[in-house]
């Protein structure tokens, strides 16, 4: 039986752990709200953008002069995987789920004899992929210093990706991130960004016959690189919200577990305390009887 002092220390330590996890949960909840607001605020832009791009892509896409960002290089030998994860841990399966999806994807591509290149955003994903895929790493974007992801960060990543594309380093680019559904559910998602694919918007916006200035091709060429940045930006925001959501529920669980543990330890502590008292009484009584 563990002695009383040990149990007491144990209880104190679990209690302080519970305080920490509780605080982390509340911080995550506050951050989640901010992250959700940011994601919400970016939605009108992304939606309009996609609607216009879908219309443009549909009218220009078929022609031979379609930009390479839309039509692709005509090859799909070299794949660039942009794996976006968090900079911090302690958020349940959030980072592992994204990394796992990326691993499965990479393994599938390798099995098909394709070349894989990996660009990581966020430290945690890099750490998890390092073991098996370190030799495919081509770069890493560090967002540790960034408190709130802004569009400028997304532009930075997009520029990096586009420079590599222009240099002919890859044919297809896919981003990996987590879609935020709600606090307990985040779906790891793979989304192809180059060659660009746009969901066909509802018919009414496509049916309007627009004049284009300068020309459809010129607008498309101007907007496609921005589209890459937009998609990366919304992925970053989704990721931010997912991370906080995952951390919140992970910390909620941890807090609850700590509570259960404290209860169990307290019962054990009381029992052994009683046992010690009983023992002492027996000793005194039997000592008195012996006289």
């Amino acid at each position, binding site marked *: 039986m563990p002695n009383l002092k040990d149990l007491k220390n144990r209880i104190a330590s679990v209690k302080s752990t519970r305080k920490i996890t509780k605080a982390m949960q509340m911080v995550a909840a506050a951050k989640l709200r901010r992250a959700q607001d940011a994601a919400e605020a970016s939605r009108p832009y992304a939606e*309009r953008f996609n609607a*216009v791009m879908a219309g443009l892509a549909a009218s220009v896409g078929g022609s031979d002069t379609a930009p390479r960002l839309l039509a692709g290089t005509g090859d799909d030998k070299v794949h660039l995987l942009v794996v976006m994860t968090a900079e911090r841990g302690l958020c349940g399966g959030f980072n592992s789920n994204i990394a796992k999806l990326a691993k499965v994807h990479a393994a599938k591509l390798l099995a098909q004899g394709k070349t894989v290149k990996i660009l990581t955003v966020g430290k945690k994903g890099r750490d998890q992929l390092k073991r098996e895929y370190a030799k495919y790493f081509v770069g890493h974007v560090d967002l540790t210093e960034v408190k709130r992801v802004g569009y400028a960060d997304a532009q930075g990543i997009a520029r990096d990706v586009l420079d590599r594309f222009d240099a002919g380093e890859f044919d297809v680019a896919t981003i990996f991130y987590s879609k935020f559904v709600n606090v307990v559910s985040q779906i790891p998602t793979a989304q192809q960004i180059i060659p660009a694919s746009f969901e066909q918007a509802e018919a009414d916006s496509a049916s309007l016959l627009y004049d284009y200035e300068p020309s459809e091709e010129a607008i498309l060429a101007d907007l496609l690189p*921005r589209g890459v940045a937009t998609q990366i930006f919304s992925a970053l925001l989704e990721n931010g919200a997912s991370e906080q959501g995952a951390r919140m529920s992970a910390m909620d669980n941890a807090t609850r577990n700590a509570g259960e543990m404290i209860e169990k330890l307290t019962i054990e502590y009381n029992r052994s305390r009683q046992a010690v008292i009983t023992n002492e009484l027996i000793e005194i009584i039997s000592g008195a009887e012996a006289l």
Partner: protein
Amino acid sequence: MAETMQFDLVSPERRLASMQVAQVQIPGADGDLTAMPDHAPLITTLRPGVLRVSGPQGDAAYVVTGGFAEISPEGTSVLAEKAMPVAEATAADFDALIGLAVEAVAKAPVDGRDAADKLVADLQALRVEVGV
């Protein structure tokens, strides 16, 4: 003819304006244009410039760089890569933007040199117009 139309100005990070306006003056890539209610449908890219709106709720001016505007008879929406009210634009913002643009000139391929040069010139002109 309708007196006003819906006007939206959104940047990737937030929605800056959403209101009823009488007219919008847009710095299009091929020159400035003014959109009023019942304008023919048009999509144009933007050059860095000042976007002016006027309507029943008063006038407003925004600095925009890059992006595009979608004009339809019912309304105009401007999707700007970077947008802010003119009053909020600072010298530091311009320094950063012009710095990036100058860098792009150096890296631009020969056939893209003109466009990159024009971007720098547009930004400098915009800076003078805003007066910071």
